[in-house]
Each structure stands twice: as structure tokens, then as C-alpha cells.
């Protein structure tokens, strides 16, 4: 098999596995700072109980996030060395900056958060929680800066085949950074809050740890509801940005082959690249034009306007994008029901809804994964949009059999890690916030 394809599979595996965890740390981090702030202000033990529980889960998620994240940083050199040579002048800096300005902060103060509660003042502990929170979000910012430059490169010139930085701020805050950062963070907050809402629901269904569970559910569901509506806003902003800066990707996500004045927003369909047609298409007339340009007759470019070799894999891009949108809509529906139940004061008694929250735990993470797939697959055949093709980015010295070997290695390790992660997560949940709060030390 060809080394480029194998390296793509390996990167997809590594990035896909890694990204199960960061959204959860973003959302859990938010929940921790809220509880710690409440504990600091009100002094009620309940908040401390909840926070201790959250910190334990956070640490478990974080450990696997670190373990899987370091693979990605190495990957640019090991599997994508031409990429590193050709765009390293720009792409390396945000990775280094992430270390200096974000990851140190997160990692060093996580130590305090996890094991330092009895060693520092209440105030220092609160500050540590905030620093971990800021650290993880700054981390996300630098990674999004790096990835957004691949989507909408700016602030550089090409000299001798290499991209050379001409303006750091233009490169960092490029045409998609802000939209994508907000969209990612809100996705993380959705993931973390529904994760906790689901766990809390389980306690309420099991009639145990009732006091912390009710408080956790109220808080996490509130955040989830707000984020689920907010996500439509950030998603919309991001989609408009894609339509304007990466029109091929938008056309692929919408399965739009012919350019159209007044293009519909596609809801369902099966695009077939070989026939350049989308079968069983269901769309809302003119909505895409309205959403992108606020004009029902605005022209949206179709795939046929671009040479075939510049089309991403249309079927996959279309489907993952639509699964994400579908899940986002489901979250909005769940939120509406949630608001209704909260107003009716029936949230804690509505077992079917609580069960729904429990089983929905993985869904926001899946939505995040689908969103990333739409972003990354939709950018193909480019590694850096309109600058460097993925096929020209791979290492030339690594034999395919070695990559195949490491794909097998990572598959085994990740499957093992995921299994152990679930095992210990369930164990922590089984113990519950009340028992964990009683145990001294770790």
C-alpha cells in the first residue's frame, strides 16, 4: 500500500482517538471552575463534594488526552516530514507556543488541583482551578490556530517552494480561526456538560448520591441547553466562513454539483461522485443562499465549477457533516424538552428523559468527531488549502511496512487504553461523589 494513504490512516486514527478527550476536558474544566467558585463564595460542602468528583474524572480524561496527544506532535515529523519542511516556518510556531503559553500552565496546576487541596489555601486552590481551565482553553486556541492556517492560510509568501511567514498575526488570526475556535469550545462545553448530565441522571435513576446528583444535573443541563442553542450561532458563523473561503468544501458538504442562484440547504441525500449527482435529495429551498449571503437568490458555487481533482471525497464529507448537523438538532430538541421539564419542575421525576440523557453521553463527542472529519476530509486533496497537497506532504524515507506496523501498534494501544479508560471511569462513577469526598488523599 502507498505510504501517503497509510500515513493518512494513521493520522486519522491518532487524531480521532485523541479528540475523544479534549472536548471533555474543556467542558469538565468549566464545570470544575463553576463549582470551585461557588464553594469559595458560599462555602457549602456540596460544591466541594462535586468538584472533588469532577477533578478525579478530569484527571483520568486528561491522562489519556496527554498520552494520545503527544503522538500527534511527533506525527508531523515522523509521517509528514515534507509538510514540516515546507510549512514548518509557520506551522511549528503555534505548536511551540502551545507548550510555552498553555500546556505548561494546564499540566503544572493540574498537579495542584489533583493532589494539593490540603496543601494550599482555598484561594490558591481556586486560582489553580482557573489556571487549568485557562490552560486547556489556550491550548485549544493554539491548536485551532495551527489547524485553521491549514484551512485558510494567510500571512505568508511562497519562496523556493516553502511557505515563509510575513505576518504573524495574519497567519494566527486567519479567516477561520475565530469561528472555528468558538465552534470547538462550545462543542467541548456541550460534550462535558452532557457527559455530567448523563452521569447525574444515572444517580437519580438509581436513587443514590441524590443531593450532589441533583445539583450536578441542574448545573450541567443548564450549560448544555445554553450551549446547544449557542452552537447554532457558532455553527452558522463557521458555515458562512467555509462558504466564503473554502467554496469547494461547502459544495461537498451540501452535495451541490451545479452552481445555483438560490441554493437549497440540503437535509438528506446520497452524493455519487462518479455520476456527479446527489440522489434522494431533500433540501429546504433557497435556505443555503439566505444563510450564507442573506439573499434568497444569491449564487452558490457547485462542485462542477472546480476541476475534479480538487474535489474532496464528496460522499464522506457530505455524510459526516449531516450527521453532525443532525446531532446538533437533536441536542436542541433535547434542550427544549429539558427547559419544559425544568419549568414544570418535573426534571428529577421524568425517568425517560433521564435515561435519554444517560444514553446521549457519547453523542456530543461523536458530533465533534464528525465536525472534524468534515473539516479535514473536506479540505482534501489539500493539506494546506490551495498551497500544499496532502500527497506531497508525507515523509519520503519511511517504508510503508513500517507505517502499517505502527498503525497496528496504535490500534492495539488505543483499543487497550479505551477499554481501561471506560473501566476506570465506570469505577469512579460507581464510587460516586459522596464516597469520593469522604476518602482522604487520592
Amino acid at each position: 500500500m502507498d505510504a501517503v494513504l497509510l500515513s493518512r490512516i494513521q493520522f486519522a486514527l491518532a487524531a480521532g482517538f485523541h479528540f475523544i478527550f479534549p472536548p471533555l476536558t474543556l467542558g469538565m474544566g468549566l464545570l470544575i471552575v463553576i463549582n470551585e467558585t461557588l464553594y469559595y463564595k458560599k462555602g457549602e460542602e456540596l460544591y466541594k463534594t462535586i468538584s472533588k468528583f469532577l477533578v478525579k474524572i478530569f484527571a483520568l480524561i486528561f491522562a489519556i488526552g496527554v498520552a494520545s496527544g503527544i503522538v500527534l506532535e511527533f506525527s508531523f515529523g515522523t509521517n509528514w516530514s515534507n509538510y514540516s519542511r515546507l510549512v514548518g516556518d509557520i506551522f511549528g510556531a503555534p505548536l511551540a507556543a502551545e507548550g510555552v503559553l498553555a500546556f505548561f500552565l494546564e499540566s503544572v496546576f493540574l498537579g495542584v488541583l489533583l493532589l494539593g487541596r490540603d496543601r494550599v489555601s482555598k484561594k490558591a486552590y481556586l486560582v489553580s482551578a482557573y489556571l487549568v481551565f485557562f490552560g486547556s482553553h489556550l491550548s485549544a486556541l493554539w491548536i485551532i490556530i495551527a489547524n485553521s492556517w491549514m484551512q485558510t492560510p494567510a500571512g505568508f509568501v511562497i519562496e523556493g517552494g516553502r511557505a515563509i511567514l510575513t505576518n504573524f498575526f495574519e497567519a494566527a488570526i486567519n479567516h477561520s480561526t475565530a469561528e472555528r475556535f468558538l465552534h470547538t469550545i462550545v462543542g467541548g462545553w456541550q460534550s462535558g456538560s452532557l457527559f455530567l448530565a448523563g452521569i447525574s441522571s444515572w444517580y437519580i435513576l438509581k436513587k443514590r448520591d441524590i443531593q450532589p446528583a441533583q445539583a450536578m444535573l441542574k448545573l450541567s443541563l443548564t450549560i448544555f441547553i445554553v450551549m446547544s442553542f449557542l452552537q447554532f450561532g457558532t455553527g452558522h458563523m463557521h458555515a458562512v466562513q467555509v462558504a466564503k473561503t473554502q467554496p469547494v468544501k461547502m459544495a461537498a458538504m451540501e452535495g451541490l454539483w451545479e452552481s445555483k442562484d438560490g441554493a437549497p440547504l440540503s437535509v438528506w441525500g446520497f452524493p455519487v461522485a462518479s455520476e456527479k449527482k446527489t440522489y434522494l435529495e431533500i433540501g429546504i429551498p433557497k435556505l443555503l443562499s439566505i444563510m450564507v449571503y442573506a439573499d434568497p437568490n444569491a449564487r452558490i458555487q457547485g462542485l462542477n465549477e472546480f476541476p475534479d481533482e480538487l474535489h474532496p471525497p464528496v460522499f464522506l464529507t457530505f455524510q459526516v457533516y449531516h450527521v453532525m448537523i443532525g446531532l446538533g438538532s437533536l441536542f436542541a430538541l433535547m434542550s427544549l424538552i429539558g427547559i419544559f421539564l425544568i419549568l414544570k419542575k418535573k426534571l428529577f421525576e421524568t425517568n425517560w428523559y433521564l435515561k435519554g440523557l444517560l444514553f446521549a453521553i457519547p453523542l456530543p463527542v461523536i458530533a465533534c468527531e464528525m465536525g472534524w472529519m468534515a473539516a479535514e476530509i473536506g479540505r482534501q486533496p489539500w493539506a494546506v488549502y490551495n498551497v500544499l497537497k496532502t500527497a506531497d506532504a508525507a515523509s519520503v524515507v519511511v517504508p510503508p511496512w513500517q507505517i502499517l506496523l505502527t498503525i497496528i501498534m496504535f490500534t492495539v494501544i488505543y483499543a487497550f487504553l479505551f477499554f481501561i479508560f471506560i473501566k476506570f471511569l465506570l469505577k469512579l462513577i460507581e464510587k460516586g461523589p459522596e464516597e469520593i469526598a469522604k476518602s482522604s488523599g487520592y
Partner: protein
Amino acid sequence: METLTVLQIIWFFLIGILFVGYSILDGFDLGIGSLLPLLSKNDEKKTAILFNSIWPLWDGNEVWLITAGGALFAAFPHAYATVFSGFYLALMIVLFGLILRAVSIEFFFLEAGNKKIWARTFFIGSLIPAILFGVALGNVILGIPLDSKMEFTGNFFTLLRPFPLVIGILGLCAIFMQGLTYTMIKTENEINESARLLSDKIWKLYAAFFVLAMIASFIFIPGSSKNIIAWIFTAIFIVAIIAIRIFIGKAEEFKAFISSSLSFASLWGIAGALQFPNLVKALGDDSLSITIYNASSSKLTLSVMVAIALVGMPIVIGYTIYVYKIFRGKTRG
């Protein structure tokens, strides 16, 4: 000198400093991991004490490696690309180790059943990178086969030549010494005693491999015997390694740790002096070597990065010291 040249030299030093920081800090937790069976004698309580002594700190320590990797990528993309793709399998084995150790401590404390598995994964996960980092460094100093496009033309076994292996074991000894002196600071009674006994043997091994590495350098690295800066760092190393022995003898554990750190830093000093301005030497043909001049990023990138480093790193070092102070004192359980 031109601004670009100055920046290239600054980045040679800054990356060196990041590696020194990594060696000193992650060195002690890698060292404890690599010596875990000998220090804990496979006893669960002792393992727990050793793990607790590093648990709140090791994560931050490893960020030095992540940052050094990122800085190498940003400042000298060609060196990063050549080494990481050329040493593919070796680095994947390192990654395997780093992944294992990243989760081991957490899993050890969460595990209700057989905790020993996670002590073992931490041991293996620490030992692999502890050896291979030195082997990798030995290779770029000795030189590796490169073509005119800066691509590695050797194979996995090219990496396992005698000189890099000697450097690998020397590095491992330095890491052992970091681990042992740190263990002495943080523990009492039996574990402390084990570390003390072990340190006698490791010290001898460390000194022996330093001498061996020096002789190997005279043979394999042209000009090494006339490199004055390397000699200065050699002198510092000798003072430091003698100081380790004296301070361990007097049970002045913190000073022993500082001496061990100084010895480690001077090894980097020697390596840097022999290597400058090369990053990766080409075997047989110096004109193909990857240097700070032909591998670097642009003036603008290097300047932006200097600004980030000058603002960021003092703050990092400041709060790292603060957090170390929070967790100072003997670990008891």
C-alpha cells in the same frame, strides 16, 4: 553578524536549554521509573510512595519535551523533519513508552485488582525513552547518512552503532542519578536506603561511561579533543560528579540532586560544544550536514518565537518553582 544568524544561534541555545530543563526535571521521574523494580522491590506500598513523590509534578516535566519538540519544529523544521522521519521506528518505540507511562500512575491508583501491572508499564514506559533519547543524540553527533535533500538514507540498524549506544547508556546513567538523588530527597527509611546503596553502583557506572564516551569521542568525533568549550564543560562535569558522591556521603540530599542536575547539564554543554553549528551531522560528507544556518525558519518566525519564549518561559519557571514548593518535603504514603 546578521540578525538572522544571531537568531539562529539564539535558538540553538534556547532549544538546548529546553532539553536541559527536560533532562533535569523529567530526568528524575524517568529515573525513578527506570529503577522502579530496584527501588520498590515490587512492594506495593513502596511503589505508591515513589509514585506519590512524582505524581503531581511529572506531567509538567514532560511538557518540557513537548515544548522542546515544538520549538525544534518551529525553529529548525528541516532538523525536526529529518530526525523524526529518519528515526521512525525508534521514535515510535519511544512513543509507545511515553504513552504507557502517561497513564500508568493514574491507573495504578485507580486499580483495585492487580496494581503491579501499572508499576511494570511505568517501568517499561520510562526505561525505553530513557535509553533511546541518548542513542538518538549520539547518532546526530556522530553523523547519520544523509542525501542532498537532507533525507536520511540509512535504516533502523544504522542507529545502533557503538558510539550512540555508549551515549545512550551514559544518558541512562545520568537519568538514573537524577532519579536516585530525587528519591533520597523525597523518601525516608528503606526506600531512601535502597536509593543510597544503588547510587554507589550507578555512580561508578556513570563515571565509567563518561570516560568511555570521552574516549569514543576522541576516536569518532574529529576535533573533539581540541574543543575548548567541551573541555570546560568536562571540568564542570567532573566537579559535579565528585560533588554528587560527597553530598550523598554527607546525606545532603538536595545538594546531591543539584550536583546531579549540574552533571546532566554539563553533558548537554559538551554535546552542544561538539555539535555547534550542526544540528544533524551527515556521515562522511560535512557539506550535507544539517546546520542551524541551512535548516532554520525565517527571521520573522525566529523573532516571534524569541518573544514568546522570553515572555513565556520566565513565567513558566516561576510557577513551576511555586508548585514544587507546594509539594516539598518527604512523601509518606
